[in-house]
Every structure is written in structure tokens, then in C-alpha cells.
């Protein structure tokens, strides 16, 4: 049970549709739940998280705010090509942070995940952390 979506484990964010200098996407992978990436307006928003290597993933958790429709895609390709749907969820509104865990039905080989936030409960959505758990 280890989280591999951490900067210190070599995870990176090669793509993010909202480049926020004050609250950058790297904050999602810093292991600190109080730092966050904040979108800068408009939907959809997309973020790719690349793990340091392909891993067998058992669950993915997200700590975020004001996210409504969320889509997660995965890729096993080195270059994050051939993305496939992994899951889709409509998160419930929360005044504070939303916490959601997605258990995968079976361990799944993943190199990259792409988070697509299609809509929100506010103009701006935050992601405080993403946890990718391997068996």
C-alpha cells in the first residue's frame, strides 16, 4: 500500500490546462493536503499525472473542492498516448473539501492518469492532492 503520486517518488505533471503561478499543479503531488492547485476559470480543465514507472494500481483518491463532473483516463504508454476511460464520477457539493476514493475492480497497470474536470460548483476548482495507491 504505497502512494506513488508524489514528487519525491518521481511523479510529475507534464500537462495542466490552467497554469497558476501562485497555486501550481505541482502542489497536487507534494504530499501536503493544505497546498493546492487552483484552476483559473473555464471548463473543462485537464491534468496529466505521470508516474515514474508503470505500476499496478488498486485505488485512486482525490482531495479537491467544487469539482462536479470528473473523468479519469489512463495510459500505459511511455508518451501518455492511447488514453482509455478509467472512471467517471459526479462529486457531491461540499462547502469544504471533497474527498473521494475510487477503488479499481482489479489491479490495473497505469503509467499516466489524465483528470478531466468537466464542470464545477464554482468558477474555480481546486485539487489539493491525488493519491495513487499500488498493491
Amino acid at each position, binding site marked *: 500500500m504505497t502512494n506513488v503520486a508524489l514528487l519525491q517518488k518521481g511523479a510529475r505533471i507534464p500537462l495542466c490546462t490552467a497554469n497558476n*503561478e501562485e497555486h501550481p499543479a505541482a502542489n497536487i503531488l507534494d504530499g501536503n493536503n493544505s497546498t*493546492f492547485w487552483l484552476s*483559473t476559470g*473555464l471548463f473543462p480543465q485537464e491534468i496529466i499525472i505521470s508516474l515514474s514507472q508503470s505500476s499496478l494500481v488498486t485505488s485512486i483518491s482525490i482531495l479537491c473542492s467544487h469539482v462536479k463532473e470528473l473523468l479519469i483516463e489512463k495510459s500505459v504508454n511511455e508518451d501518455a498516448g492511447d488514453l482509455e476511460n478509467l472512471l467517471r464520477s459526479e462529486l457531491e457539493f461540499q462547502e469544504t473539501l471533497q474527498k473521494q476514493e475510487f477503488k479499481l475492480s482489479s489491479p490495473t497497470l497505469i503509467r499516466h492518469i489524465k483528470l478531466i474536470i468537466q464542470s464545477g460548483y464554482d*468558477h474555480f476548482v481546486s485539487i489539493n492532492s491525488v493519491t495513487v495507491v499500488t498493491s
Partner: protein
Amino acid sequence: MVLLRAKCILIGNSKVGKTALAQTFHSEGTHFPKSYSLTTGVSTCVKTVQIPDTPHSVEMYILDSSGNELYSDLVVHYWENPSMVALVYDVTDPQSLASCPMWLEKVRSQKPEIAFPGALIANKSDLTNRWVVNSEEGRRFADGKGLAYFETSAKDSIDVDAPFLYLATEYYKLYEDRVRGLIN
């Protein structure tokens, strides 16, 4: 420095001066390419507005819908996830103010759970002898709907920037509130 992005829906009856306002606002200062969709009649112009007394700015995507397309369902797709609304009427045409509640409802119904900044623009203020809708009426309607009221002349380039600057500033305040909420 933060660059926010906003979708600004420019709406109101045909001939009130929406396209003229968008063009006048757009052509002052920096130029950006303008795109036009033949199928929906929606044209988008992009302009970056600096928030006064801050290093921050808002890139506004202003969606101007032309003529009859306004009444089609196709255009509604373009209004998804609006960030702000600029509602325009013509001070020489009372019917154009009477239509405003309907336009506002159309945009707000896109995103009923989110409050977004709105401006009411009384355009063609230069036609001094032909004013039929007075400032008082416009202001009262705006107050009732939580909109800020502006008088402009797209023709003479008078105060055209003011409503857009207001919308950008209000949007920036919403962003600041979010940051504050997340930090505490």
C-alpha cells in the same frame, strides 16, 4: 501574477449594439484574432483586461451571438459554464429592456448553482433626443437583478470599457475569495 480566464456572454435583443460594443471594446489596445462560427452565428473575441492596482489580469472570451441564431437551441451550447454576463439594451427602444429578464434567465439557467457577475448596459447614449428608457428605469431593473448599471455609446466610444472592467474585477474578487477560503 495570475491570469484568469472568463467566458463573457454578451446578450440582448437584435440591433441593440452588441456587436458594436464588442468591436469597440476589442479594438482599443491589444488586438486578438476574432473567430466566427457560421453554423451558430456566434463570434468570439478575446481581450485581456488588467485588474487595477494588481499585477493580475483576466482574459475575457466575449461571445457575441448574431440575429436569429439567438433563438435557436444551438447557441445554448456556447453558453455552458458562463463566467459573466453583459446584458445590453437600447435606450431608444423600450422593448429591448423589456426582453432583458428573458435573456438573463436564459443565461442563468445554464448554471443555476453558480453566481456570476452581471452588467446591464444601456447603449446608444449618444442619441440624446431619442432616449425613451430613462436611467432611472434601467437602474431599477439592474438593482432588482443584482446587475451593475452602465450607460455607453459604442458609436462614440463612450464608457464602453467600464462594464467589461467591472465584470473582470468582480470575477477576480470571486477568485480571491476562493483562495482565501482554501487557505483558511
